[in-house]
């Protein structure tokens, strides 16, 4: 998909963490592209590498994390090759991020205005007065009532939903082209979550920004995303449009995830929930073959010893031998 409107392209990115007891491969050979104005969701459970991936893109990885290979192309420039100063220009001006914890991502000793105007003045070169006015505008945009007053509040005077909206306002204040939202609603109540998701969708329509949504919640994905990348143990296992993925999940892991969510559908009987057996393998001791093989219901002999590549099958990307186009499942042998 080499279209002209690709905003961010990640190619074969791998990130390692060198630990005392060995190396953890947190992100393994991940590729994806975010197009202009698109919402791309990256879904995975804890330990799937999705947050490390977003930090790698932002250049915010901390020791011992390290990008070992790959490219992160933003409008054609490789972010990994940029100097710190150039990277700082990209962050905020072009790409900005909403963090997971609204409770801890704001500085408790500065007012909302101080924190909002800091990034506005740095990145947009406005004077103090214009920056304050813009801060108030941004707070109004994200739906904070009486923003002129609330801008002088400290973070502790606001509720979780309000703080998350302040974080969103901060991320949006320099008109980014791409917003990376790392679990933007996980710490929030359901009714507030609905507000924030509606807000992000609304802003995307208004200012046409692209969103890279990182989440473990398939419900949030179904509500907002255009395309979905499913990650397991640092690897992409399935990539498809949201409609296709939820309509017909194909990878056994995606299928299991979707089936294990308690549905709201009206059922007469209470059948036990579907569950994926077993646990995520230890990242220091990954199996040789497919990372999901131990928990998979459709495991084959070769899954235990060989790592499946990412196939282009069924109009999407799939990392599973079930979709190996060269294998003939009926004959059980390699056809070509």
């Amino acid at each position, binding site marked *: 998909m080499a279209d002209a409107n690709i905003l961010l392209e990640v190619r074969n990115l791998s990130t390692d963490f060198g630990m005392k007891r060995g190396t953890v491969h947190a992100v393994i050979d991940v590729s994806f592209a975010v197009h202009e104005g698109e919402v791309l969701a990256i879904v995975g459970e804890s330990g799937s590498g999705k947050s490390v991936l977003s930090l790698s893109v932002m250049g915010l990885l901390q020791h011992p994390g390290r990008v070992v290979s790959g490219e992160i192309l933003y409008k054609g420039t490789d972010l990994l090759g940029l100097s710190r100063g150039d990277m700082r220009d990209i962050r905020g001006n072009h790409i900005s991020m909403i963090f997971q914890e609204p409770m801890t991502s704001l500085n408790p000793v500065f007012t909302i205005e101080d924190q909002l105007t800091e990034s506005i003045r740095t990145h947009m070169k406005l004077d103090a007065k214009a920056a304050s006015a813009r801060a108030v505008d941004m707070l109004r945009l994200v739906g904070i009532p009486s923003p002129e007053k609330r801008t002088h509040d400290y973070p502790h005077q606001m509720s979780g939903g309000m703080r998350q909206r302040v974080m969103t306002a901060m991320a949006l204040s320099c008109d980014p082209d791409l917003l990376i939202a790392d679990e933007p609603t996980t710490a929030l109540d*359901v*009714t507030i*979550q*609905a507000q924030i998701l509606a807000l992000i969708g609304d802003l995307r329509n208004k200012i046409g920004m692209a969103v890279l949504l990182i989440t473990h919640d398939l419900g949030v994905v179904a509500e907002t995303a255009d395309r979905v990348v499913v990650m397991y143990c640092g690897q992409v296992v399935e990539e498809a449009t949201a409609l296709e993925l939820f309509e017909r999940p194909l990878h056994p892991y995606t299928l299991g995830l979707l089936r294990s*969510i308690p549905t709201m559908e*009206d059922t007469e009987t209470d059948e*036990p929930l579907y569950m*994926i057996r077993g646990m995520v393998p230890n990242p220091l001791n990954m199996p040789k073959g497919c990372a999901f093989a131990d928990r998979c219901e459709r495991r084959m002999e070769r899954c235990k010893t060989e790592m499946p590549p990412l196939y282009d099958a069924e109009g999407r990307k799939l990392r599973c031998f079930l979709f190996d186009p060269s294998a003939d499942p009926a004959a059980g042998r390699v056809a070509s």
Partner: protein
Amino acid sequence: MTDTTREPLIRLEHLSKFFPMDTDVFGRTTSVLKAVDDLTLDIFPGEAFGLVGESGCGKTTVGKMMVDLYRPTAGEIWYEGQDLAKLSKRERRGRCCDIQLIFQDPYASLNPRMTVGEIISEPIRINRLVPREQIADRVGYLLNAVGLSANYRNRFPHEFSGGQRQRVGIARALAMQPKLIVCDEPVSALDVSIQAQVLNLLSDLREEFGLTYLFIAHGLNVVKHISDRVGVMYLGRLVEVAPKRELYRNPLHPYTKALLSAIPVTNPAKRTQRILLEGDVSSPIDPPPGCRFASRCYAKSGCASCACDTAMPELVEVSPGHFVSCHLFDEGKRVLDAMPR
């Protein structure tokens, strides 16, 4: 499950818990946080009652009062003919075995310096539930019951994943041979694939040991799976109680409707128009008179004559077993379909 002739296992009557927030120079309370305000609820033997609400609505406080981690400010907790709220500490000791608690955070609720075997055997030892020489067998039996190998008894909590730790927490609660277990958001800290494992385990144990659950959660979808009846709380008040299917098919309270519509769908083809509540949850500190939900209510305008801002609505039974606390459903004033959307 709506059989009113049955004797409840536990009955909460007009239960309240207020926390003093501020005092004047004479030490008199000037400001209170009404965590739970005049809550009345029956839980019947063998049922799973789901208690749902957003953070700060008082659902955890209810659970903590039932296991005596909080003393109620007012009201009674009737259990086997005794009011637990009035018992002394010593008298409570004998009763406490029957009601146990499973905590929300499996990472914080297990002592990191004790082995799993010690954690599970401690309550057995202290309460002398089985003779000393049988404790080891009992621990092994409990570990097996929650789907862990009995060999894990010598391991420490940090060696386990979140789902396994939660199983240890469940085994510890079972060790006391309880009749009622208060499950305080037992799966909200776990991954989706592990959530399903723990929920299924809780369902199985309920049948195996004849348990009764008070299942506390913040989302309606988890509760739907495990409960027989569901109660919805908002700012310390119970706003709606109904058998599960009735509640999900025919929610009446405006807040319940909003909560149900806020649950993300799992099929993007079915993205629906949401009821988006304006504003944040108001503060439970010195709440205004009148309905607690009035400041966010979108249905209030549908009933001009209702006293939403001045009088607290009572919990009334609108159909068998279905209770709702909203002025729209006050007697003789059923504006059922007057609500928008």
